[in-house]
């Protein structure tokens, strides 16, 4: 993808999600502090930062999992700061979890169907009385789930227990579950964790395909090789604050980022003089 297009999208203002002054405190700890950033539509945005930088907390904030203590979140022009988690999902944002959290004892299809729950309304009474709504919703869930499974390439495995899938397959099930809610924005929390290199590659392909299909993807990831080759746009957090934002190439040259990751030589003690400045700008 040409970089020009990306920056055009970025500057065109078609931002899908915007956070303003977002912050959260746990006790005395400011886990995320005053972050203002936006996520452009139709792109892959990566949120990176060293261990403990507050990436997951940030993720939990935008997905409505945590309630921020300051700032606001605007999604598709709508303020979603105070929405409950399931309402955030209903507004068009779905997420996966860091570890492969799916329903292992259920079938692949059922997992995906659970993801579609937010689009259905049939309740307990519908279930007991087997109303028309129940039957319609059930059929709709099934269809939506199959569509989602097709998108992640698991349609053939629909009947298998999800726990019997490979690690990568389980990741895909998780993504299908998220896709079944017809999101505009897909949040992936460390999609490549616990996966071997080949699996990682195939996952990257899937993510690209999804974005090509019109989805916006935001991910938190530690595997930098993956981030650098996959992301269109990178947001760097450190100590809960945004320290850099931009294209991968820009970000990876940003001294602030390098210092955040590798440490400043000044703090390395008196022995660290040799490589000063060399590495970051090489």
């Amino acid at each position, binding site marked *: 993808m040409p970089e020009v297009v990306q920056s055009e999208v970025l500057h065109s203002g078609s931002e899908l999600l915007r956070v303003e002054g977002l912050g959260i405190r746990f006790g005395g700890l400011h886990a995320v502090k005053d972050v203002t950033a936006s996520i452009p539509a139709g792109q892959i945005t990566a949120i990176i930062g060293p261990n403990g930088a507050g990436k997951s907390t940030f993720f939990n904030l935008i997905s409505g999992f945590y309630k921020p203590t300051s700032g606001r979140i605007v999604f598709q022009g709508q303020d979603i700061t105070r929405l409950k988690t*399931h309402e955030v*999902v209903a507004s068009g944002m779905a997420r996966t979890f860091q570890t492969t959290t799916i329903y292992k004892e259920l079938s692949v299809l059922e997992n995906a169907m659970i993801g579609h*729950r*937010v689009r259905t309304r*049939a*309740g*307990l009474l519908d279930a007991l009385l087997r109303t028309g709504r129940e039957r319609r919703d059930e059929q709709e869930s099934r269809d939506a789930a199959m569509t989602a*499974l097709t998108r992640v390439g698991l349609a*053939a495995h*629909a009947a298998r227990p999800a726990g019997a899938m490979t690690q990568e397959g389980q990741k895909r099930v998780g993504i299908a579950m998220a896709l079944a809610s017809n999101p505009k924005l897909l949040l992936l929390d460390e999609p490549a964790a616990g996966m071997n290199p080949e699996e990682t590659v195939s996952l990257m392909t899937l993510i690209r395909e999804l974005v090509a299909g019109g989805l916006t993807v935001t991910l938190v990831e530690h595997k930098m090789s993956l981030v650098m080759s996959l992301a269109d746009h990178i947001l760097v957090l450190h100590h809960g604050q945004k320290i850099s934002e931009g294209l991968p190439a820009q970000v990876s040259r940003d001294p602030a980022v390098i210092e955040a990751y590798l440490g400043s030589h000044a703090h390395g003690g008196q022995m660290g003089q040799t490589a000063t400045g060399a590495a970051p700008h090489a």
Partner: protein
Amino acid sequence: MLGNAGTKSAGAGRFKLGTWGWVAVFVLAALVPLFGPSGYLLDIGVNIMIYAMLAYGMNVLLGYTGQLPLAHAGFFGIGAYTVGILTLKAGWSFWLAWPAAVALCAVLGLLLGLVAFRTKGDAFSIFTLGVGVIIMLVINKWDALTGGNEGLNGINPPAGLEVLSKGVGLKLSAGFYYLALIALILTVLAVARARGSVFGRSLIAIRGGEDLARSAGIDVFTHKLRAMMLSTAIAGFAGGVYAVYVGFLGSASAGPAMTFTVLLYLLAGGLGTLAGPLIGPALLYTLTQSLKGLQDYQYIVFGPLLVLLIMFAPQGLAGLWMKAQARRELAAVTGKKGAERA
């Protein structure tokens, strides 16, 4: 598309087998009174069915939603006493009092849920245990309404049941047996429908992990509340049968001991399965009945048996069966794959 077809046929096949299995079980059960069994045998049957209903109610919360409620017998008691009080003191017909009791239990379950679901895990269980104890104590102390320690005595069989039974040439005890059987069938049907629905799938999702369910877009709190209502309503439903069947109510039937008995039966049968809540009571109730002959030794045998059961077959009998079946299926699948590859 291929996958879709595959799923459907597999799912439908399992469903069919299951449904026919249940039909067979209930038809067999319905035939029992026709062979003129002893009152004792029928009594065991009725007791098992009442316990099974309770276990189904508990299974909705524990087995499907993953919340351990320990006030279950309290709602059983509320259902039973509602029927008892309405028929004895207000002169209602059982057929009116019974649905009223179920509705009351559902409403009270909603109220309990509103408070109790602020807590999670152990705290939820213990909170509900406290509520259960309070329900029992209130029943025990509120003499004017419940008869207190003396209990409620002389609750009559449902209007028409005796006439009906006599009419088809059966004893009243057989009439009660059919009443319980119909109630049980309704319970199983309700639970099966709830489980197999969009709603029920969401409960399973909550059991699998509340955070995950929330992220999948499920309104966890509301779903838990509904599950609680279904669970307590079923407990009240069972309580109604119990009230007219035994004809006497004492507060002990609403106490924690009863809850733990049901929990035990449910665990033995298999949590989260449709057959477990029936298998558990059938097995363990019969076992306790046969151990009764041991008198002083009954709990000396029963206690360790319980420990062994939970240590070595914690998934219950239905669970064991399903596990074996899953293994067979898996073996079949992999075997086929191997063949294809070869």
